């Protein structure tokens, strides 16, 4: 359904961030894209969704194809209309709009308000917590609710392909479980294909059908979740396990967290 072939992305005409990245997302599947800070995961998603342009970024080589058509270089609005919807890192809800207004903004590209009710109902079915907050300003929602709203906005557009950028960011493990369960359900029931970017490899590989691991703008490892989970490097660096199988020291974990907050 989606294919990136040797994609190169440059920011400001000088900073080369993606250095020949290739990956495939087959229809109906959940594909996980893993990697550490600065590997270029967000850049990859923005290259697909057309948001790169707003940041002086450009696909300088290779191609991006969606349903057999080249989409690199097209503008974001066109790409959304073709059926790709990016849920951006950090949730990015419209803080001064109510929950329901946020959802309506998400459905901006779909024609006719006739099925608006149905679509809102669909979202509230997946995220019942949003119902009671429908008239509340989104800025006052909790982090978890905001993430639900961000995914709900995507649902409103009925996308064929959803790009999720670190939906687990800053959420409690319980909530992460809940949200990933819903993502799986959306994949099955709405038949939305999903490209999932995560730092939390364990949970991402838990729901994915296939995974890619990227470092420094390239894919360095790919395979089924089982294969990735068995890889020693993945175990060490992404699952937080050493080869003896015990957790890494608390200090490392904390250090990683702090760095993450600094960057995001």
């Amino acid at each position, binding site marked *: 359904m989606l294919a990136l072939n040797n994609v190169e992305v440059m920011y400001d005409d000088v900073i080369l961030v993606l250095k020949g990245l290739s990956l495939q997302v087959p229809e109906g599947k959940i594909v996980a894209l893993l990697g550490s800070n600065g590997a270029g995961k967000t850049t990859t998603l923005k290259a697909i969704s057309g948001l790169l342009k707003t940041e002086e970024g450009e696909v300088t080589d290779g191609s991006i194809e969606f349903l057999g058509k080249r989409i690199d270089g097209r503008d974001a609005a066109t790409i959304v209309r073709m059926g790709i919807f990016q849920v951006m890192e950090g949730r990015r809800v419209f803080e001064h709009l109510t929950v329901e207004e946020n959802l309506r*903004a998400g459905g901006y590209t779909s024609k006719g308000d006739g099925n608006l009710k149905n679509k809102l109902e669909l979202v509230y079915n997946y995220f019942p917590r949003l119902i009671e907050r429908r008239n509340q300003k989104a800025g*006052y929602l909790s982090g978890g609710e905001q993430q639900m709203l961000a995914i709900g906005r995507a649902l409103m557009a009925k996308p064929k392909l959803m790009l999720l950028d670190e939906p687990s960011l800053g959420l409690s493990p319980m909530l992460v479980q809940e949200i990933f369960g819903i993502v799986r359900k959306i994949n099955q029931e709405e038949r939305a294909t999903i490209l999932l970017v995560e730092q939390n490899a364990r949970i991402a590989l838990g729901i994915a059908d296939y995974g890619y691991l990227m470092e420094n703008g390239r894919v360095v490892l790919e395979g089924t979740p089982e294969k990735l989970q068995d890889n020693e490097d993945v175990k060490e660096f992404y699952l937080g396990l050493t080869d003896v199988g015990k957790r890494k020291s608390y200090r490392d974990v904390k250090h990683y967290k702090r760095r993450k907050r600094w960057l995001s």
Partner: protein
Amino acid sequence: MDFFLLLLVNGLVVGSIYALVALGFVLIYKSSDVLNLAQGELVMLGAYICFAFVVQYNIPFFAAFVLTLVFSTILGLSVERVVLRPLIGQPIISVIMVTIGLSSVLRALVQAFWGTDTRPFPTIVSEAPVMLGSIPISQVYIYSLAVSLVLLAIFTAFFRYSKTGIAMRAVADDQQAALSMGISVRRIFAMAWIIAAVVSAIGGIMVGLINGINISLSYMGLKVLPVAILGGLDSIPGAVIGGLAIGVLENLSGGYIDPIVGGGVKEVAPFVFLVFILMIKPYGLFGKEIIERV
């Protein structure tokens, strides 16, 4: 008491026109962070265009009114296309400087075509005043107030319920996120300029019907700035309340204080009031609260 009521009504009429024009100003600021310093010139130009259609081309007033709105739509669209779009990505301050340039160009054009004398609008609305209780109010005031209030209500509903209105507020909140859902930010900017030009023209025509028109109509821009700041710059209800408040304040201080001190208070009062309010509420009466949560 009658005198007070008279001042109050006049204040509300003028204030509702301020509110209308401030709405255009706020829209542009809200969606693109640009202070449009040519807002007053849009008021002036709209009034002169309508005047030209009615007086110079003998078109009936209602047709002329509609034609003026069409003209303003095209004007707003072309300002966005020709003047602002090439500036996308440039610092906001450059864009603001460009609106100053635009204001000089528009003022020069109006002077070149119509000179600087005050021109009376032909009488459209009957001059016989209606009595509100014991105070006489000219009919044009009533129409003007009604038109402004209806328009303000329409726009409020538009921003709250329509897809485009919600999209405009979404762009004002987070441009990139809005883009990620397929909202065309350029189209939204164009819409903001169109609405700004249209409401300004309507405001200009109404002032023209009341007072006649001359080049000083462009000072409306100076009036609208305190109105918008008072309301919080980015708040649509704020613009409405700010407009009415300043209109009333201006008339009351003009009526009661000017005769004592010999004039001038009417012009200054809005600014004094503004400074006062800003000392208490630095973001204006309805400024966007910054939502902080982690």
